[in-house]
Every structure is written in structure tokens, then in C-alpha cells.
């Protein structure tokens, strides 16, 4: 999963939970083709709020390190595309044994690390072990714990044996960077196989990537990429307005968009994100133990109006935990849709004809306070009194996430494919349905993706009907770029930002 905790300080996001933030979505290409007339020697300046803590994604580098280095400097055996599919990258091919427990990967030929050393199966083994190591802080560690054994029969072949079937294994591998097994000081330097090598990193300010001449694939469409880091959205927008940056990876302030939309020097694109805003009930705490109460609350809140007021028309309504880019997406917005009369009826049936009151633990950063106030006024109309308790990200983590000491809370969950957390009864929201847990387990051990998809669709529908949480809306993914730029990634950019296709007109 992951839950995104942002705070007043941009990089503080990374402070608490960014380690848990993993990539989502892939790289689409944005903008129209430029017709070939672009500057191959261009420097593309990218503005971002997420500075890496260090350059090692198994040692607490945070969200920023994924954004800057994933796919650009480091590559995996597989890569995740923009529509949520998994493509082969450093793996030329792979075979799965009949029992689904052994994966044999053949590596692509002619791949070299930036240090000049050729890629071998030893490096793949080393990289996997690095993610699985005791001191690893990789967010993917728990997903990969099914790995039982890694063998390297020859320099081009890697054979991985799993302790149980895991249909998501290949997908999870798309998050594992293949690193030179002899590399040192990975917190401040790198040795990957990607189209860029690390240029200069000035902490607190900027990180540069330079086109790598020895790249095995198609060379990057630009000479140099510089990520410029800002602490707040205003500074970031100012940088874009003064041409200090060419593109902003993820626009966080809808108020700022008008000035770009009305200016022909900029392009505003509205992609699909995987970030969901949740009103999470504690399903183990009264009165939310009662499914009717949860359904009533979900029906009493006009999500559309909320989205309109927070994001001014951007973003999407979702009726479940599943964004459109997950393979098991279905439009479930009609389940527990806005209907205050029905909500009142459900409350009466549940024995709360006169309503009730509860405390809503609300993280102190946008958009939670706004959403909380909105929810308060909506629920007042059906007789429910909401007490808003504003807390810091730290308190949220300890009180809500660790100690499950809450009745209801607001939180944003950023990852793709995180529906499966409803299969874990020990998760903070306490949703406990044996059938759902079983479906989630079966889905992971499914033999085909079709089976997996079918099972997770069931989970999707069941949790929606049960109003396990109230999924308020899906965040928009807004990229604002100079109109000189084309072919930049559009979707699911919470963590990844493939920069190698970006073309800049001279």
C-alpha cells in the first residue's frame, strides 16, 4: 500500500511514510509529436516537490529517488507502462514452471552499467538480495518475501524459486532496480544501466542526469535532465512561470492552473493518478461495525460536490479502492451513491434514527481539513455530528496507523493495486471479512492473470457494497509543461517520471 503523508514541508512527506510510497502507473507519453524538430542537445528542467533523501531506494531514499532515478538511471527486469501493464526491460524473456513456483529469466545482451561493467546474472541476484536484506527499507520487501532461492546457472540466466505462487511476482520485479553488484556508496553515487547517468546532485536544490553514451537501447531524446526541488507549490509555479523549469511533475494546486491554461506557452494535461482520498472508518469501532452505518455515511456525502470544490473539475469519482489503471477496475460509483434520503433510512434501520456523533481524525495538511469540514456539513443533514480532530502526520501514524486508536479518519492512499489491503484484517481500518481475505489470497496464487482479475473484481465489489471505507475521489494527475516540450509522462506520476522520451524544441 501506501499512504501519502504530506506536510507543510515538501520533503517532510518523505519523512514519515514516503519510504512506503512505491511507484504507481508508468510512463505514458504526453503532448503531441513535435514532428521531429527538436533539440537533441537540450537540457530539460523538471520541477518537483519530492527531493530524494539519498540515492538508494532500499535505504530510505523516499519517493523522490524513485521519481528521478527509476527507469532513468536504474532499470528493472521489467517496467510498468502507463496503462498499468508490465513490459520486459532487462529481461529478454522468461519462463514459469508448471507449478508456478520457478521463474527462469534470460537477460538481454549487450547491457552495460555506467561504470562500463557488463550486466550479468550475479548483478540481478545481488539486486534482489539487496531488496530482501534485513536492513532494507524497500517498500516492496514484503511483496518479495515469497522469494526462496535465487540461482545463477550462467551469466545470462537467473532462476528464482518462490515459496508459494505469486502472480504479482513479475509486476513486483518492475520495482527492483538492477544494480552493479560491485558498486559502492550507492547513497550518493549510482551504477545503473539506464539511459542517463548521474550528473551533479546538490542537496536541497537540484539533481542532474546526463545522457549515457553507452546505453543499450534507444538514446534519450535530450542531452540532460535536471530535477529542481522546491518546498512549496507556489515556488514551483513561479519557477515554471519564469522558465526556470520546463515541466512540473505533479501540480498540487488547482488555483494555479488558470494562469497556465489561459497562456499558450503552457500545456495542462489531466491524467489518471492512483491516489485515492479515503474516509476510512474503523470497522472494528462502534458504530462503524455496522455495515448499514457505513453505507449510510457513504450515501450521505456528495463526493461530486467535494471533488468540484477541492479540485475544480479535475479528478474522478471512484466507488471503490480501484483506480482505472488497475487491471480489475470497474465503475462502482453507483454503489452507495449520494442519496441522503436513503442514508436516513439506513440509519433508522441501524437504530440511529436520531443520528450519532463521532470524531474524525484529520491530518492537518491539504486537502484533509477542507474535506473534513465538507463531510461535517453533509453529515449534519442526516443527523450525524462530526467532531473534527486535527492531527499532525506523526500523530496520525502513531495514533491511527499503529495503535488503531480512532473511530474514523481521512487519508490519501497513493499506490496502484492496493485493494489487497482489505484482505488483511489487521490493517488499520480493521475490515475483516473471511471471504474477502480468502479471495485476496487466492488471487495472489492464481495461475493466470484472468483468474486473478476475476477474484479481485469480487473483492472490489464486495468491499464497495460493504462500504469498507468511503472512497471520496481519485486525485487528478496534472502535469503542466512548457509548450516547447513533448513526450513527457502523463499518468500515475506519484513516483515515476521517465524523462528519456522528452523532446524540447530549440
Amino acid at each position, binding site marked *: *500500500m*501506501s*499512504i501519502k503523508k504530506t*506536510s*507543510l*514541508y515538501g*520533503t*517532510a512527506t*518523505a*519523512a*514519515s*511514510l514516503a*519510504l*512506503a510510497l512505491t511507484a504507481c502507473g508508468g510512463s505514458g507519453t504526453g503532448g503531441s509529436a513535435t514532428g521531429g524538430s527538436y533539440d537533441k542537445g537540450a537540457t530539460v528542467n523538471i520541477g518537483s516537490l519530492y527531493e530524494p*533523501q*539519498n540515492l538508494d531506494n532500499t*535505504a*530510505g531514499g523516499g519517493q523522490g529517488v524513485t521519481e528521478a532515478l527509476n527507469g532513468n538511471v536504474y532499470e528493472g527486469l521489467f517496467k510498468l507502462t502507463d496503462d498499468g501493464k508490465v513490459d520486459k526491460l532487462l529481461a529478454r524473456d522468461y519462463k514459469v514452471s508448471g507449478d508456478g513456483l520457478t521463474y527462469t529469466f534470460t537477460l538481454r545482451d549487450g547491457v552495460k552499467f555506467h561504470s562500463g561493467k557488463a550486466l550479468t546474472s550475479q548483478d540481478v541476484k545481488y539486486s534482489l538480495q539487496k531488496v530482501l536484506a*534485513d*536492513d532494507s*527499507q*524497500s*517498500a516492496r*520487501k*514484503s511483496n518479495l518475501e515469497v522469494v526462496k532461492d535465487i540461482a545463477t546457472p550462467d551469466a545470462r540466466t537467473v532462476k528464482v524459486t518462490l515459496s508459494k505462487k505469486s502472480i504479482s511476482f513479475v509486476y513486483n520485479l518492475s520495482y527492483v532496480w538492477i544494480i552493479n553488484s560491485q558498486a559502492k556508496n550507492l*547513497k*550518493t553515487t549510482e551504477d545503473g544501466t539506464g539511459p542517463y547517468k548521474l550528473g*551533479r546532485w*546538490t*542537496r*536541497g*536544490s*537540484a*539533481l*542532474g542526469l546526463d545522457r549515457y553514451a553507452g546505453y543499450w537501447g534507444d538514446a534519450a531524446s535530450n542531452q540532460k535532465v*535536471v530535477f*529542481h526541488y*522546491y*518546498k*512549496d507549490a507556489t*515556488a514551483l509555479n*513561479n*519557477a515554471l*512561470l*519564469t522558465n*526556470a523549469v520546463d515541466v512540473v511533475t505533479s501540480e498540487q494546486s488547482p488555483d494555479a492552473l488558470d494562469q497556465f491554461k489561459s497562456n499558450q506557452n503552457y500545456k495542462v494535461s489531466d491524467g489518471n493518478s492512483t491516489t485515492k482520498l479515503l474516509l476510512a472508518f474503523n470497522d472494528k469501532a462502534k458504530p462503524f461495525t455496522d455495515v448499514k452505518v457505513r453505507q449510510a455515511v457513504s450515501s450521505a456525502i456528495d463526493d461530486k460536490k467535494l471533488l468540484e470544490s477541492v479540485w475544480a473539475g479535475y479528478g474522478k469519482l471512484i466507488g471503490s479502492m480501484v483506480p482505472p489503471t488497475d487491471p480489475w477496475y470497474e465503475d462502482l460509483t453507483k454503489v452507495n451513491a449520494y442519496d441522503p434520503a436513503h442514508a436516513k433510512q439506513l440509519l433508522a434501520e441501524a437504530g440511529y434514527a436520531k443520528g450519532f456523533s463521532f470524531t474524525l481524525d484529520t491530518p492537518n495538511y491539504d486537502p484533509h481539513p477542507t474535506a473534513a469540514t465538507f463531510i461535517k456539513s453533509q453529515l449534519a443533514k442526516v443527523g450525524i455530528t462530526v467532531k473534527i480532530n486535527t492531527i*499532525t502526520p*506523526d*500523530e496520525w*501514524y*502513531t495514533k491511527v*496507523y499503529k495503535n488503531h486508536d480512532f473511530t474514523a479518519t481521512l487519508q490519501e492512499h497513493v499506490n496502484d493495486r492496493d485493494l489487497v489491503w482489505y484482505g488483511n484484517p489487521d490493517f488499520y481500518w480493521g475490515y475483516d471479512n473471511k471471504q474477502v481475505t480468502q479471495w485476496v489470497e487466492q488471487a495472489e496464487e492464481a495461475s493466470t492473470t484472468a483468474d486473478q482479475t476475476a477474484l479481485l473484481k469480487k473483492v472490489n465489489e464486495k468491499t464497495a457494497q460493504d462500504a469498507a471505507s468511503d472512497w471520496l475521489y481519485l486525485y487528478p494527475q496534472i502535469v503542466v509543461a512548457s509548450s516547447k516540450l513533448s513526450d513527457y509522462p502523463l499518468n500515475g506520476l506519484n513516483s515515476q517520471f521517465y524523462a528519456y522520451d522528452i523532446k524540447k524544441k530549440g
Partner: protein
Amino acid sequence: MARYLLRRLAFLVVSLALASVVLFVLLRLLPGDPANALTSVGASPEQIAAARHSIGSDRPLPEQFTHWLGQLAHGDLGTSFVSSLPVGPEVTSRLDVTVPLTLAAFVLAVLIAVPAGFVAAYKRRTWYGALLSAVSQLGIAIPVFWLGMILIAVFALNAGWLPAGGFPPDGWSEPAEAIRSLVLPVVTIALVMSASLIRYVRSATLDVLGSDYLRTARALGSSFGRAMWRHGLRNSSVPVISVLAIELASTLLGAVVVESVYALPGLGSMLATGIAQHDYPVVQAVLFVSTLAVLLIGFAADLVQRVVDPRLRGRLSGGTR
């Protein structure tokens, strides 16, 4: 003089030691657990305990403190909990931004405030003297972030003359760019700082203008300029120097606001991030370096005052000159 210096030095060391205890303890009293930053969501209690162990936050406070002091003694500012990178080099690289920013702002503020304050006092009965007083009063009331935003809107966004923020990635190896990006922040700080300085210079000058010794000097045939230069300036500069030192110190510490408005990678923004992340080694290092700087500024101000006003030498060093 040597005895005096020695005493000041001892005072400096004791202050620094006291400050280090206070900031070490205060930081630990903050709510929140740095181990949160090191473990992923879903971490088991064992993993959290392991994280605490790896950064040493599970050890008794006195032990952590002596460990930190030991590192300091070796010139090591510690290792960040969050990035696990050494803090020292980062502090140094950020001083490259904060020190020029603060000093330039200070010099500019003095260049504005000293003549303006003098004019405001000497010509207080003219319209421009009154205007200067009024403007400085207004300047004191303006929040620094607001002034920053206005300057950005006017000179960066509209006119496009200067960058709206940021610092060149290559730092001072591109001097022109580095200077360009510091112009607006320097002006922002200098304007706010000079507003309060003008008040001080004005009242110090007024004291001198009404003093007996100036009248006596004039009566003995000295021209106003000469009397002011020989007696007035010296007398009025003593209190002003104290104020200057305080202003310089508070600017160094207060740069955090300006650095965040202008997205500058300085010491202030490092401190803000460190606090938000419970990254104790970072916060300790920044505060320690700042404390040292403030103490040194105070020391320097004292020395300058003694050079300017010989009477102080006698008073402070026990009567011998």
C-alpha cells in the same frame, strides 16, 4: 587585553556547552519518533525497534549526548537519521548560500540605515525626515514573507529581470547566476532589517545631537561635520553596534523564512526540513553551528565596541589599560 580575550573565550566555550545541552534535551522532548521515518508502513514492532537501534535512539539520553559530544570534538557533525549521509558536508554546502545571503543583506541594510537614520534625526523637522521615520515604521510592520512575495511578483514574474527563486545547481561555479538568484532575497532581508535599524540610528543620533559634548565642541569652534565625526559618531555607534550584532545574528537565524520563500538551499531550509523529519542530528548540527555563529558575532561586536570607545576597555578588563 590578553586577559580579557581569554575570559571571553572561556565564556564562549561555556555558553556553547550550555547551549548544546539545552538544544539536545529540548529536541528529545519533541513529540514523534524518528524511527517512523525509517520504517515503512506495516513495519513490525521488531523492525521499528531495529530502526531505533540502528540510529541509537534507544540508548539512554546521557549516552547519546556524550556520543554526540565525542563526535563534535572530532569535528564530526553526525549522520542524518533520514538520509544516513554525513551532516557536515551538507552544512558546509548550505553555508555557501546562507553566509553570503546574510552578510550581503547586512551590509546593504547598514548602507541604507546609517545615512537614512542620520537624516531622519538631523532633518527630523523637514518633510523628508518625517517621511523616512514613517517609512521605517511601516517597514517594521511588514512581514518578510509578504515582502518577498511582492518582490517576486514585481521583479521576477512581471518584469522577468531576476529569477523567482532557486539557486544554480552548480552553485558558485556560476557566479553571475548565483548572484542573480541572491539579489531579491538579499533585498528582502535588507529592507526589513534596515527599517528597524533606521529607528535605532535615528534615536542614537538624536541623543548625540542633544548632548553637551557636541555643543561644547561646536562652542570651541569645531564645525558641525567635524564635531560629529570626532565625537558624535563614536558615541552614537556604541549602542548601534550592539543592535547591529543582534540584527546580524537574528538574520542568520531568521533566514529560514526568506530561504523558503525563495526556495534557496540554505541552512534555514535544512533546519526546517530536519525538524519536520525528526532528524535530530541535522537539527542539532544546524543549531550548533548557528549558536556558534551568534556567539562569535557577539564576541566580535564587543571587540569593535572596545576599539571605538576606549572607556569600555577600562571598564571591562578590570581597570588596566
